[in-house]
Protein backbone atom coordinates (compact mmCIF):
# COMPACT_ATOMS: atom_id res chain seq x y z
CA UNK A 1 0.00 0.00 0.00
CA UNK A 2 2.99 2.31 0.54
CA UNK A 3 3.94 1.65 -3.08
CA UNK A 4 0.41 2.52 -4.21
CA UNK A 5 0.35 5.74 -2.18
CA UNK A 6 3.75 6.70 -3.58
CA UNK A 7 2.49 6.11 -7.13
CA UNK A 8 -0.56 8.28 -6.51
CA UNK A 9 1.51 11.14 -5.05
CA UNK A 10 4.06 10.94 -7.89
CA UNK A 11 1.26 10.99 -10.49
CA UNK A 12 -0.26 14.16 -9.01
CA UNK A 13 3.17 15.87 -8.77
CA UNK A 14 3.93 14.78 -12.35
CA UNK A 15 0.71 16.39 -13.54
CA UNK A 16 1.35 19.64 -11.66
CA UNK A 17 4.92 19.85 -13.02
CA UNK A 18 3.68 19.16 -16.56
CA UNK A 19 1.10 21.96 -16.55
CA UNK A 20 3.49 24.40 -14.84
CA UNK A 21 6.47 24.12 -17.18
CA UNK A 22 6.76 25.18 -20.81
CA UNK A 23 8.86 22.17 -21.86
CA UNK A 24 8.51 19.54 -19.11
CA UNK A 25 10.18 16.59 -20.91
CA UNK A 26 13.38 16.43 -18.83
CA UNK A 27 11.61 17.26 -15.58
CA UNK A 28 9.12 14.42 -16.06
CA UNK A 29 11.56 11.66 -17.02
CA UNK A 30 12.59 10.92 -13.38
CA UNK A 31 8.91 10.56 -12.45
CA UNK A 32 8.34 8.03 -15.25
CA UNK A 33 11.46 6.08 -14.25
CA UNK A 34 10.60 6.08 -10.55
CA UNK A 35 6.98 5.05 -11.08
CA UNK A 36 8.07 2.33 -13.49
CA UNK A 37 10.56 0.99 -10.97
CA UNK A 38 7.95 0.93 -8.18
CA UNK A 39 5.63 -1.20 -10.33
CA UNK A 40 8.45 -3.51 -11.42
CA UNK A 41 9.82 -3.97 -7.91
CA UNK A 42 6.82 -3.77 -5.57
CA UNK A 43 4.06 -5.24 -7.74
CA UNK A 44 5.87 -7.44 -10.27
CA UNK A 45 8.75 -8.66 -8.04
CA UNK A 46 11.29 -8.31 -10.84
CA UNK A 47 14.18 -9.21 -8.50
CA UNK A 48 12.67 -12.69 -8.12
CA UNK A 49 13.86 -13.54 -11.65
CA UNK A 50 17.48 -13.20 -10.60
CA UNK A 51 17.14 -15.36 -7.49
CA UNK A 52 18.02 -19.04 -7.59
CA UNK A 53 14.97 -20.73 -6.09
CA UNK A 54 11.24 -20.10 -6.01
CA UNK A 55 9.47 -18.58 -3.09
Amino acid at each position, binding site marked *: *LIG*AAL*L*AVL*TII*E*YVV*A*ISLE*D*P*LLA*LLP*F*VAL*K*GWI*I*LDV*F*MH*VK*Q*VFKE*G*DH
Partner: protein
Amino acid sequence: MTTTETPRTEYHQDMSFQPRANRIGMWLFLVSETFLFGAFLAARYYSTGTLRPEELNQALALLLTIVLLLSSVSAYLAETSIRFNHRRNFVIFTTVTIAMGLLFLGGVVIELKEAIHLYPPGTPYGSSYFMLIGLHAFHVVSGLAALGIVLFLGLKGHFGSKDYWGVEGVVKYWHFVDLAWLVIYPTLYLF
Protein backbone atom coordinates in the same frame (compact mmCIF):
# COMPACT_ATOMS: atom_id res chain seq x y z
CA MET B 1 18.39 -49.62 -19.13
CA THR B 2 21.82 -48.02 -19.40
CA THR B 3 20.94 -44.44 -20.18
CA THR B 4 21.58 -41.78 -17.53
CA GLU B 5 18.97 -39.35 -18.91
CA THR B 6 16.31 -38.15 -16.50
CA PRO B 7 12.93 -39.44 -17.64
CA ARG B 8 10.70 -36.67 -18.99
CA THR B 9 7.99 -37.34 -16.40
CA GLU B 10 10.37 -36.47 -13.55
CA TYR B 11 10.71 -32.93 -14.87
CA HIS B 12 6.96 -32.48 -14.66
CA GLN B 13 6.81 -33.87 -11.13
CA ASP B 14 9.48 -31.45 -9.95
CA MET B 15 7.14 -28.60 -8.99
CA SER B 16 9.94 -26.28 -7.85
CA PHE B 17 11.22 -26.23 -11.44
CA GLN B 18 8.02 -25.29 -13.17
CA PRO B 19 7.13 -21.89 -11.58
CA ARG B 20 10.63 -20.56 -12.25
CA ALA B 21 10.46 -21.65 -15.89
CA ASN B 22 7.01 -20.07 -16.16
CA ARG B 23 8.22 -16.82 -14.65
CA ILE B 24 11.22 -16.57 -16.97
CA GLY B 25 8.95 -17.29 -19.94
CA MET B 26 6.52 -14.60 -18.80
CA TRP B 27 9.29 -12.02 -18.37
CA LEU B 28 10.67 -12.79 -21.82
CA PHE B 29 7.19 -12.27 -23.25
CA LEU B 30 6.89 -8.94 -21.40
CA VAL B 31 10.30 -7.85 -22.69
CA SER B 32 9.13 -8.57 -26.26
CA GLU B 33 5.98 -6.53 -25.55
CA THR B 34 8.18 -3.67 -24.33
CA PHE B 35 9.88 -3.57 -27.73
CA LEU B 36 6.47 -3.38 -29.42
CA PHE B 37 5.36 -0.44 -27.28
CA GLY B 38 8.83 1.11 -27.63
CA ALA B 39 8.49 1.13 -31.43
CA PHE B 40 5.13 2.90 -31.27
CA LEU B 41 6.43 5.42 -28.69
CA ALA B 42 9.47 6.12 -30.87
CA ALA B 43 7.16 6.69 -33.87
CA ARG B 44 5.30 9.36 -31.87
CA TYR B 45 8.48 11.31 -31.07
CA TYR B 46 9.86 10.86 -34.57
CA SER B 47 6.72 12.16 -36.29
CA THR B 48 5.72 15.03 -33.99
CA GLY B 49 8.54 15.59 -31.50
CA THR B 50 7.09 16.73 -28.18
CA LEU B 51 4.32 18.83 -29.71
CA ARG B 52 0.83 18.12 -28.44
CA PRO B 53 -2.57 19.74 -29.07
CA GLU B 54 -3.98 22.11 -26.45
CA GLU B 55 -7.42 20.48 -26.66
CA LEU B 56 -6.32 17.24 -24.92
CA ASN B 57 -8.66 16.22 -22.12
CA GLN B 58 -6.11 16.38 -19.28
CA ALA B 59 -8.58 15.81 -16.46
CA LEU B 60 -9.95 12.62 -18.00
CA ALA B 61 -6.44 11.28 -18.73
CA LEU B 62 -5.36 11.91 -15.13
CA LEU B 63 -8.49 10.18 -13.85
CA LEU B 64 -7.85 7.17 -16.13
CA THR B 65 -4.28 6.97 -14.87
CA ILE B 66 -5.45 6.87 -11.26
CA VAL B 67 -8.09 4.22 -12.08
CA LEU B 68 -5.48 2.02 -13.76
CA LEU B 69 -3.02 2.45 -10.87
CA LEU B 70 -5.75 1.46 -8.41
CA SER B 71 -6.59 -1.58 -10.52
CA SER B 72 -2.94 -2.66 -10.18
CA VAL B 73 -3.27 -2.46 -6.40
CA SER B 74 -6.41 -4.62 -6.39
CA ALA B 75 -4.75 -7.08 -8.79
CA TYR B 76 -1.79 -7.31 -6.40
CA LEU B 77 -4.16 -7.93 -3.48
CA ALA B 78 -5.97 -10.64 -5.49
CA GLU B 79 -2.66 -12.43 -6.12
CA THR B 80 -1.64 -12.12 -2.47
CA SER B 81 -5.04 -13.44 -1.34
CA ILE B 82 -4.83 -16.63 -3.40
CA ARG B 83 -1.24 -17.19 -2.23
CA PHE B 84 -2.63 -17.37 1.30
CA ASN B 85 -5.70 -19.39 0.26
CA HIS B 86 -8.12 -16.52 0.96
CA ARG B 87 -10.46 -17.39 -1.89
CA ARG B 88 -13.20 -14.94 -0.93
CA ASN B 89 -10.78 -11.99 -0.97
CA PHE B 90 -9.31 -13.26 -4.23
CA VAL B 91 -12.76 -13.20 -5.86
CA ILE B 92 -13.53 -9.72 -4.47
CA PHE B 93 -10.22 -8.15 -5.55
CA THR B 94 -10.27 -9.80 -8.99
CA THR B 95 -13.81 -8.50 -9.54
CA VAL B 96 -12.74 -5.01 -8.44
CA THR B 97 -9.79 -5.17 -10.87
CA ILE B 98 -12.08 -6.16 -13.74
CA ALA B 99 -14.54 -3.39 -12.82
CA MET B 100 -11.76 -0.79 -12.83
CA GLY B 101 -10.42 -2.12 -16.13
CA LEU B 102 -13.89 -1.72 -17.65
CA LEU B 103 -14.12 1.80 -16.21
CA PHE B 104 -10.76 2.59 -17.82
CA LEU B 105 -12.01 1.27 -21.17
CA GLY B 106 -15.17 3.38 -20.86
CA GLY B 107 -12.99 6.46 -20.34
CA VAL B 108 -10.87 5.53 -23.35
CA VAL B 109 -14.00 5.32 -25.52
CA ILE B 110 -15.02 8.85 -24.39
CA GLU B 111 -11.48 10.05 -25.16
CA LEU B 112 -11.50 8.50 -28.61
CA LYS B 113 -14.88 10.06 -29.43
CA GLU B 114 -13.46 13.50 -28.64
CA ALA B 115 -10.12 12.81 -30.32
CA ILE B 116 -11.57 11.70 -33.65
CA HIS B 117 -12.88 15.28 -34.18
CA LEU B 118 -10.02 17.24 -32.60
CA TYR B 119 -7.02 15.41 -34.10
CA PRO B 120 -8.15 12.83 -36.70
CA PRO B 121 -6.00 9.76 -37.45
CA GLY B 122 -4.84 11.40 -40.70
CA THR B 123 -2.82 14.05 -38.85
CA PRO B 124 0.71 13.26 -37.53
CA TYR B 125 -0.29 13.57 -33.86
CA GLY B 126 -3.62 11.82 -34.47
CA SER B 127 -1.99 8.79 -36.05
CA SER B 128 0.43 8.41 -33.10
CA TYR B 129 -2.40 9.00 -30.64
CA PHE B 130 -4.76 6.42 -32.13
CA MET B 131 -1.98 3.84 -32.62
CA LEU B 132 -0.80 4.10 -29.01
CA ILE B 133 -4.23 4.32 -27.40
CA GLY B 134 -5.52 1.50 -29.63
CA LEU B 135 -2.56 -0.77 -28.93
CA HIS B 136 -2.87 -0.18 -25.20
CA ALA B 137 -6.66 -0.63 -25.21
CA PHE B 138 -6.20 -3.95 -27.00
CA HIS B 139 -3.89 -5.04 -24.18
CA VAL B 140 -6.44 -3.91 -21.59
CA VAL B 141 -9.13 -5.97 -23.33
CA SER B 142 -6.92 -9.07 -23.46
CA GLY B 143 -5.94 -8.53 -19.80
CA LEU B 144 -9.60 -8.28 -18.83
CA ALA B 145 -10.37 -11.49 -20.73
CA ALA B 146 -7.53 -13.26 -18.88
CA LEU B 147 -8.70 -11.88 -15.53
CA GLY B 148 -12.23 -13.08 -16.33
CA ILE B 149 -10.93 -16.61 -17.02
CA VAL B 150 -8.90 -16.62 -13.79
CA LEU B 151 -11.94 -15.41 -11.82
CA PHE B 152 -14.13 -18.10 -13.38
CA LEU B 153 -11.59 -20.82 -12.58
CA GLY B 154 -11.10 -19.44 -9.05
CA LEU B 155 -14.82 -19.58 -8.43
CA LYS B 156 -14.77 -23.24 -9.52
CA GLY B 157 -12.12 -24.00 -6.89
CA HIS B 158 -8.95 -23.80 -8.97
CA PHE B 159 -5.74 -22.22 -7.61
CA GLY B 160 -4.45 -22.22 -4.05
CA SER B 161 -1.35 -21.51 -1.98
CA LYS B 162 0.65 -24.18 -3.85
CA ASP B 163 -0.78 -23.62 -7.29
CA TYR B 164 -1.28 -19.95 -8.10
CA TRP B 165 0.83 -19.52 -11.21
CA GLY B 166 -2.29 -18.92 -13.36
CA VAL B 167 -3.19 -15.95 -11.19
CA GLU B 168 0.39 -14.70 -10.90
CA GLY B 169 0.93 -14.76 -14.66
CA VAL B 170 -2.27 -12.86 -15.43
CA VAL B 171 -1.62 -10.30 -12.66
CA LYS B 172 1.92 -9.75 -13.96
CA TYR B 173 0.47 -9.08 -17.39
CA TRP B 174 -2.00 -6.60 -15.85
CA HIS B 175 0.82 -4.77 -14.08
CA PHE B 176 2.63 -4.59 -17.40
CA VAL B 177 -0.45 -2.97 -18.99
CA ASP B 178 -0.32 -0.42 -16.16
CA LEU B 179 3.41 0.09 -16.66
CA ALA B 180 2.91 0.71 -20.39
CA TRP B 181 0.28 3.36 -19.59
CA LEU B 182 2.69 5.11 -17.22
CA VAL B 183 4.88 5.84 -20.26
CA ILE B 184 2.05 6.40 -22.76
CA TYR B 185 0.27 8.91 -20.51
CA PRO B 186 3.08 11.49 -20.32
CA THR B 187 4.05 10.79 -23.95
CA LEU B 188 0.61 11.76 -25.25
CA TYR B 189 -0.64 14.20 -22.63
CA LEU B 190 2.18 15.81 -20.68
CA PHE B 191 5.41 16.15 -22.72
